[in-house]
């Protein structure tokens, strides 16, 4: 870990970090879309969807396939700040099974370098990427369990432990003093914590969508909205 008291205080003051509690752990929520557990030195990121651009452009739309490059650059800057012992990529890291075959060589290299700078890199299986592509460093797994927490891509019914998941790409809208704010967000109850999607070309699902309301009942929720460069409890 490389974060310091000073760094932390500065960021909280600048509102680029929020701090909260989930499953009896302190969570630092970064306005750039990642979560960090200081007690464990774990960084959580979700839904990278690498090579989504190139996937979609295969359908006759000339989308730029710069998303991987952009995603990796942002991630790289974040890792520089935290230097965590462990990184958990919470699923849908790759948009589809052929992602790596389309990825630019420079981006591939960058990705491998990034993974290799971290002692433990865990790739959680997602619905888009049930298998880790060949040649990628890091460890593939279905889920990770610690204390009363289980980290997996999608929620499972009848789960007694606290779940930290991705998959839903939550976003929300709110109004403060006649002004509207909208953006990606972290949303959680006492039982389920949903990570925002990190990928450059990832859209979002409104937190008031039926599916979200079922999983996280409105009255028991907490949201942290990421707007511009800041993050706040909304």
């Amino acid at each position, binding site marked *: 870990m490389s974060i310091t008291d000073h760094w932390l205080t500065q960021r909280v003051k600048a509102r680029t970090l929020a701090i909260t509690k989930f499953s009896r752990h302190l969570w630092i929520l970064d306005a750039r879309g990642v979560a960090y557990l200081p007690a464990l030195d774990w960084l959580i990121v979700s839904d990278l969807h690498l090579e989504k651009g190139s996937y979609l452009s295969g359908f006759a739309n000339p989308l*730029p396939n710069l998303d991987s490059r952009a995603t990796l650059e942002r991630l790289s800057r974040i890792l520089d700040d935290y230097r965590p012992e462990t990184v958990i990529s919470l699923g849908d890291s790759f948009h589809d099974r052929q992602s790596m075959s389309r990825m630019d060589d420079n981006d591939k290299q960058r990705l491998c370098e990034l993974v290799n700078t971290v002692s433990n890199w865990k790739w959680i299986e997602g619905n888009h990427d049930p298998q880790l592509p060949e040649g990628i460093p890091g460890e593939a797994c279905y889920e990770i369990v610690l204390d009363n927490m289980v980290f997996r891509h999608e929620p499972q019914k009848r789960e007694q432990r606290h779940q930290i998941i991705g998959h839903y790409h939550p976003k929300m809208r709110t109004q403060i003093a006649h002004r509207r704010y909208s953006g990606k967000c972290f949303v959680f109850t006492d039982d389920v914590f949903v990570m925002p999607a990190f990928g450059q070309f990832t859209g979002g699902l409104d937190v008031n969508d039926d599916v979200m309301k079922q999983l996280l009942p409105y009255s028991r929720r907490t949201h942290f909205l990421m707007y511009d460069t800041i993050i706040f409890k909304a």
Partner: protein
Amino acid sequence: MASSAAILPDIFSAWFARKQWQLRDYQKQMLSDKDQHNTTLLIAPTGAGKTLSGFLPSLVELHEAGCESGGFKGLHTLYISPLKALTQDIHRNLLLPIEEMGLAITAETRTGDTPSHKRLRQRKKPPHILLTTPESLMLMLSYADADTLFGKLKRIIIDETHSLISNKRGDFLSLALARLSTLSPSMQRIGLSATVAFPETLGAWLAGSDTQAHVIRVNAGEKPNVTMLHSASRMPFGGFMARYAIDDIYAAIEAAKTTLVFVNTRAQSELLFQMLWEVNKSALPIALYHGSLSKEQRRKTESMMASGMLRAVVCTSALELGIDWGDVDKVIQVGAPKGVSRLLQRIGRANHRLDEPSEALLVPANRFEALECQAAIDAINRGELDGDAPQPGALDIIPQFILNCLCSRSEKPEALYHQCLAAAPYQSLDKDDFDKLWQFTVDGGSALNAYERYQRLVENEDGTFSPANRRVIQRHRQNIGTIVEAGRLKVKRIRRGNQGKIIGEVEEYFAQQLTPGDTFYFAGEVLKYEAIRDMQLHARPAKAKEPKIPSYAGGQMPLSTFLAEGVKNILSTPHSWRALPKQVREWLGLQKAFSALPQPGNVLVEQFPFRQAYYTLFYTFDGRKANQTLGMLLTRRMEKMGVKPLSFSVTDYGLSISAINPVTSEQLQRLFQPDILGDELEDWMLQAPMLKRSFRQVAVVSGLTEQRYHASTKTMKQVTFSTDLIYDTLREHDPDHVLLKVARADAERELLDLRRLANLLIRYVDKATLVNLEKVSPMAIPIVLNVRSEQIKGAGAQAIIEQADLYAEAETMLDEVRALLAVQQ
């Protein structure tokens, strides 16, 4: 002038005689001169027999060919109308004459609604005259047999030509014209237009580059009789609905035989329709008509109108085009007219007898709008018209045009470049820009696209290009319509589960404002929004008393700055206020007492606290473009000064900026500083919401993203994501991408250039009077209540959140984290 007998074949003269019609002078002229001019533009008011005149030359030629040489084989004439449904009008103006004269001429329509078997037959065995839309024309030009289909085309008639200048639809059509001229070099062009301010400009558009049009002007006949409502009910100071005047409007409908009630936006039409029914004590048949309704609903209203079954129709500009609806004897314009030419065109729908004036009533929605209505009335009485200056052609259309041509046959880039140059809006198209757009069409134009999967076009050995595969061709054809209708979602009225019927369309921006549970009016009933599924807006009928969303704002129509001048003049000549309604005079008096009246040679700047912020209002009367540009510059400067701007909104008359801190007199002077540093506006522009809006449009129009998703498979489910993400990615990682330039050019159509902006500031710098008020002024109300304001991302936005004190938790938890770190280190 030669007599009718010499110009018209007997069978035609006989028919005219039976109808008791006289061949008008200009109709004679069009017939006798038909082979002398390549392009003819006919400018005539409604009711002058315009449409028939357009067809006469072709009808005569086809008849003569039939008599002499066994008939013309193939497609002789194309008729283009912007409307999706070409109905009663065509029947009356074309099919009926053909039938009544017993001519051996075939005429058919082809639109998006034409069934495929009919389309196929039309391709194999084309009628003599084909009536179609710009989109369908583009589609036909993409066929492999386009050259055979159009090879013998003698004439193209473009109706409602005035509605095509300076917009993407017109740009699109001008390229189609250039293409047709390549396929059939002897093709003639005829344009039918309403009265416009600058006919020569329109003629130039029609003729194409380097040629001139022959313009025939028909006298406008009697000036319309336009009055403004002086209501006994209390007029509001702001707002866009004329709720106060509903009884007056109803009374006017009762007093007339058939009335057209125009409003500026679809949402306003829905609301007004509801309000009229609430007071409809005599159970008059009143209908609703706007472009978002399904074609069945529109057809129903059209036929009811034609058979005289309706007393009134509440409508939007969808009604301005094409349809000539019989016995309308009154036009009511609700809400400020937004332009004189446009108003006249609407009024024109009411009249078929040139010798009698049309009757029109203007109903301002608030006291400020009354000034605009008066300015319009004055302009009409003086015979003055306004019009848009022509703009260079939109660049995002080019990739679609390129792809369209290549679907038909392989071409070299140079050949298509020259075809573009032949279209008037593209006569100055930069070769470098064209090349970049070509490259974009090939593979997305991005610096790093090595993977051949991205290619839409492939180069052949002879240097020509073709579409890479069938899928590219199919996708292109499926999406042709989006070029003109970019940004719409179909509305599905849900009954059970997900079953329901498509009842129309809404603008995407409208759908984006909704959250599940919100209610809105559509097609005359209240619907509750559920979700967007498969690019359709799903909504259920609901019983809400008051729909939650104010689903409209000042309207999305392009606005004329002409009237802003007129309003400024009215304000500075108090003796002209006699013509205004008493309540408006009172309001002006109130404004004068409470604040100040805008004076000529001076810019009034008001400031007051409102809604937890400080509002600064600049009454410039310089038009929307100027105010939009000024808004961007001033908010930028305010941000730098630490004033913390939050948002701004713009009308033709003024600019309103809200901020956390008030502006001082000294700061005001600095705001108007004429020296604009080159990059000042530049980097602000790139982040501006306005540019993102342009990019959104450009993305769809150019084919970068698609609007119609055939989202049946699971993998396609996550296909949609905001084009804003693409924009941000390109800005950071591929700043030379051609679409960024295209979006920029697009946005600049709505802005002043730097030189004009500087001139504006020079005018203001010593002439601005800052008036500090304790609360909103009477004149400011309509502007500050404007729902659509542009949000500024910056210190102000963050300050609001700060004030809301949402960070308390972070501070307490910080201590816990610190403790943890201390232990670990």
